[in-house]
């Protein structure tokens, strides 16, 4: 399941909604990305995220399909926010559920690594002097995504 939204989300409520009434799920893994107050040694005071409506949902759905093809996951939820966000607020949530922990762990890790390099979102950081800068792509994110390429 894919959700692209402006509003904040409640991690606990999302996990509960996914697992309530289910007795076949043995493992739930969640990853939450938060707005932090520094980047590349600079102080950050706020974040804004732009995205490409339409293509964002398509890319996220493709990433979910890929994960479902590679691992035995019973449930998969990706929530990604856009718009303005304050420090400490959640940006992204990935939840995976599987009968055993390994599939849920690996699928969640994969989903985040691929999402970072494929989903059309762009971060803009605000600093203390009121300047706004576009965030640069990270080499480490590209390396992390590449790790899953030969796994098929």
């Amino acid at each position, binding site marked *: 399941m894919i959700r692209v939204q402006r509003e904040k989300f409640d991690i606990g409520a999302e996990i509960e909604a996914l697992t309530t009434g289910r007795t076949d799920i043995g493992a739930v893994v969640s990853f939450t990305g938060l707005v932090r107050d520094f980047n590349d040694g600079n102080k950050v005071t706020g974040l804004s995220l*732009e995205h490409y409506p*339409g293509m964002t949902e398509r890319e996220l759905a493709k990433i979910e399909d890929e994960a479902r093809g590679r691992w035995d996951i019973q449930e998969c939820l990706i929530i*990604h926010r856009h718009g303005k966000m304050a420090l400490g607020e959640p940006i992204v949530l990935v939840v995976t559920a599987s009968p055993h922990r390994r599939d849920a762990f690996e699928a969640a890790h994969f989903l985040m690594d691929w999402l970072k390099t*494929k*989903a*059309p*979102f*762009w971060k803009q950081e605000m600093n203390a002097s009121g300047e706004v800068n576009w965030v640069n*792509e990270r080499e480490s994110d590209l390396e992390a995504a590449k790790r899953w390429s030969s796994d098929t």
Partner: protein
Amino acid sequence: MKILYFAWLKAKLQMTEEVVSCSDERRDTDSLVRWMKKRGPAFEEVFSDLEVVRIAVNQEYITGNTTLSEGDEIAFFPPVTGG
């Protein structure tokens, strides 16, 4: 054809989207980019380093030159930084 710009490309070009017709000089993505570069200093700057410009046609990433036709949606944007 609808052309969309995102992130710093949008800011530098001061444009979110525009409509251009499909013509001989805009028949594929390579020729479209060549045409873009000749539109003025801002366009020349934005398209000077194609290593930092990603292209999507009809909301799918393209890797090589892609044929265009009327009604296509072409998007230009920088490497993504979500998550």
